[in-house]
């Protein structure tokens, strides 16, 4: 299925297949150009008569729940990464599938983590046929080596919602790991021994899947308050001793970076946001939990205090640093997409101004607006950026699949998208002539902040004008690239790719923006 594909060239000039895993695919048509028509997907009608009047939907085991949900060959199972690398559920789910003798399953996680390495045996044996979702660690390597039978499809968080809502992904059975739930299936992520904050990634699945199973290790009597996911969308509830490893779900304390270069990048970024006039009363920003982004928030906070400026809202990934801003009155709200540390979880439980959100509210492109486009600025990372500001987050310059897209593509719709990145990493240039994989079109990337200078996209004449008198080292992206190439000993070699596709990259609207081919040196054993 991966070889002998027919290819077409999309609006970004990238080669993409016309079909993906047997289904027709639409090439990228440009930012904002694709407007599908028709109805959203709808799940089957259910009747209360088929559910216990007592509201008690408990079944004895994962295997029992899968059997009751009618599991069979070729079905699609979904799950969510709110437990990150501490998930203890999905390995058990696929073990149960293997015991039931089911094959050819498609797994649609919002992201897979190194803890899911044991699933490689189920890929090898054919229990899982392919994975559609962000791939990190060993599963990423497995796919890079071309070992997966189907084509991997990488989507953003918003793109996943869009694909489910638009009917591109039909989910037969959704598995929702819940830190606290009641027997009816109401559940929440903000409390319980495996507390993770919120369950927004599982919300679409609970609404659109044929069957949904809640798995918890903290069952409370009805009602579970608050309910982040409604039990009225849930078929079965399974109780386990343990659903997650708390230390790997959220960190006790989020570490800020100690790297002087990253701190410099973070400080330049905050200064840029200030000097460009973005930091003003009532503004909003989003920064992730990476070391540089966290430090950006800390520098910006100092500048906000100094200037007497308050934000209306900040978007998480929340951490204790955002919580401090909320509790010190520097922002009215945190609109949280996922929670990264224990302080974030506590705040979500205690602070009315700490609101949980979902990819529907924040990132979904086929909705009536989304929060990301309302953000005054967002600070993101990237593995590569080219001189036309096109950016890559999924592969390294050597062509290996590294990271999932997360909310990265969705955030690019903010009013000012800033990539805060080192100009090179251990000799590997980050600013290049052309990205290995196109994940974010250059027209949406406004500013590149590196330790060697700040490059503003020439399209953003307003930002160039606003920072004309700034003391920041603002320079052209080509000059930064040339400086780094000279330091690193010339341009890096380009990886040699085979003609075998291993993954396709979806744009936020469901079209194909690029294809990842297997690197020639990555031989299949």
């Amino acid at each position, binding site marked *: 299925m991966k070889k002998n594909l027919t290819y077409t060239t999309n609006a970004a000039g990238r080669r993409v297949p016309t079909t993906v895993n047997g289904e027709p695919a639409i090439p990228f048509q440009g930012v904002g150009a694709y407007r599908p028509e028709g109805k959203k997907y709808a799940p089957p009608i259910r009747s209360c008569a088929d559910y216990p009047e007592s509201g008690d939907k408990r079944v004895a085991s994962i295997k029992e729940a899968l059997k009751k949900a009618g599991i069979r060959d070729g079905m699609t199972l979904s799950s969510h990464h709110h437990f990150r690398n501490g998930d203890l559920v999905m390995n058990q789910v696929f073990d149960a599938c293997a015991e039931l003798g089911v094959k050819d399953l498609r797994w649609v996680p919002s992201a897979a983590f190194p803890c899911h390495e044991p699933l490689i045996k189920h890929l090898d044996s054919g229990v899982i046929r392919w994975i559609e979702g962000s791939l990190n660690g060993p599963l990423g390597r497995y796919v890079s080596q071309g070992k997966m039978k189907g084509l991997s499809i990488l989507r953003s968080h918003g793109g996943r919602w869009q694909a489910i809502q638009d009917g591109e992904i039909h989910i037969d059975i959704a598995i929702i790991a819940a830190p606290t739930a009641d027997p009816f299936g109401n559940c929440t992520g903000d409390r319980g021994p495996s507390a993770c904050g919120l369950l927004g990634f599982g919300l679409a699945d609970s609404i659109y899947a044929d069957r949904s199973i809640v798995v918890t290790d903290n069952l409370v009597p009805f009602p579970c308050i608050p309910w982040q996911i409604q039990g009225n969308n849930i078929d079965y509830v399974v109780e386990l001793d343990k659903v997650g490893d708390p230390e790997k779900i959220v960190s006790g304390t989020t570490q800020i970076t100690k790297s002087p270069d990253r701190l410099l990048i973070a400080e330049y970024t905050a200064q840029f946001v200030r000097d460009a006039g973005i930091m003003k009363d009532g503004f909003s920003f989003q920064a992730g939990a990476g070391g540089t982004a966290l430090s950006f928030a800390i520098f910006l906070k100092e500048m906000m205090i100094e200037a007497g400026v308050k934000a209306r809202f900040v978007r998480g990934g929340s951490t204790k640093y955002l919580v401090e801003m909320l509790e010190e009155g520097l922002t009215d709200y945190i609109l949280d997409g996922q929670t990264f540390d224990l302080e974030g979880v506590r705040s979500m439980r205690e602070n009315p101004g700490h609101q949980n959100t979902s990819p529907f509210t924040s990132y979904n492109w086929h909705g009536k607006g989304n929060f990301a486009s309302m953000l005054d600025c967002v600070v993101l990372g990237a593995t590569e950026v080219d001189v036309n500001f096109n950016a890559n987050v999924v592969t390294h310059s050597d062509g290996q699949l590294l990271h999932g897209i997360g909310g990265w593509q969705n955030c690019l719709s903010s009013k000012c998208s800033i990539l805060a990145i080192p100009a090179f990493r251990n*000799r590997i240039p980050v600013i290049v002539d052309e990205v290995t994989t196109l994940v974010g079109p250059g027209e949406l990337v406004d500013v590149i902040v590196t330790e060697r200078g700040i490059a503003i996209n020439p399209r953003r004449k307003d930002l160039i004008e606003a920072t004309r008198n700034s003391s920041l080292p603002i320079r052209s992206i080509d000059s930064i690239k040339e400086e780094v190439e000279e330091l690193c000993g010339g341009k890096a070699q380009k*990886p040699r790719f085979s003609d075998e596709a291993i993954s396709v990259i979806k744009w936020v609207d469901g079209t194909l923006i690029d294809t990842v081919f297997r690197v020639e040196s990555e031989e299949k054993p």
Partner: protein
Amino acid sequence: MNAFTSGRSAPKVPSDCRVTFSPQGPLQIVVRSSVASFYGDSLKSLVQETLAALNVMEGTLELDDFGALPFVIQARIEAAVKMADPDNPNQVLPPIHSKAIYGSSRTRFRRSRLYLPGDQPKLMLNAGLHQPDGIILDLEDAVAPIEKPSARLIVRNALRRLDFFGAEKMVRINQGDLGLEDLETIIPEHVHLILLPKIEDASEIVKIEKKVDELEKKHGKNEPVYFMPIIESARGVMNALAIAEASERNVALAIGLEDYTADLGTQRTKEGTESFFARATLVNAARAAGIQAIDTVFSDVTDEEGLIASVKEAKALGFDGKGCIHPRQIRPIHDAFLPSQTEVEKALRIKTAFEEAQAKGLGVVSLGSKMIDAPVVKRALTTVGMAEKAGILRQGE
């Protein structure tokens, strides 16, 4: 078979490499690199060319590379080859980068000087971006004895290749004969200042100066290399003035308190009572000799408040600068050395008076009824310059 290794033995040393050379047998080259898919082809030719330039015709060379820049790989190959054959006369000099060459001056600011271990290239690459007044590539205490030969070559190559963005390029050499050997490698390069460790007596400086004179002449260097002697013992403190006056090359006198307090048989305290005499003596000696006085390093990287307090105290004692070991210490040091608003205002009044006196062709500057001495005028001009550079001069002032 003997094998000679340049490089730390940790499993991974980011932006660095490890080179092992076994001199016997037919020539074999083994390259393992984390950046093979980016620079694999050029790495192979770099190793071959470097060996050829060193006239190595046999032996096995293994390179374990973790993203080292070419000048680092070249230095480590040269170091490993010369460990095997100390008499090898060849050098592999990477081309000089145009941005690695810029001037310095006797009286420039030396508020912060950032120590970087000479065998850790990763820390050097971006050091200048943090804008310290000086960068010290250290060959002495920060380098383990086994890494000394490699550090010397890495520092030599870094002086040729790296842009330190205007920071004064300093090298701390070793004590004694090893230090004189360091000079042979370092003086021919674009280095502004040599730090002379553990100086106790003016005669030591005379000896070093003689060596530097010879090397400058031999290599046809026009710009003089400055000295910053470091006093780190009771004897050094008692001889401070003679040391400060021992060479025209001296631009500053620095104090190192770790060794000094050990020499006194006491401990360093936060209050610093035990070193007050030494620091005050050093400032007086430096001032008497007309050079700068530079305080010891502040070594607790996490304690920013302690650093600021320490710099303020140093400034009050009369010091012009402070040592640091982490780039994040640079800004607090520069800020704490900034003149206060009162100092700036006073300096501006003196500057205006000086300019008026010049315009009128008067030899004597006076402010109100008070006559202003030339050194006070000079100091005022420095203060205004510092305030201008730091952007703390208000419009219209």
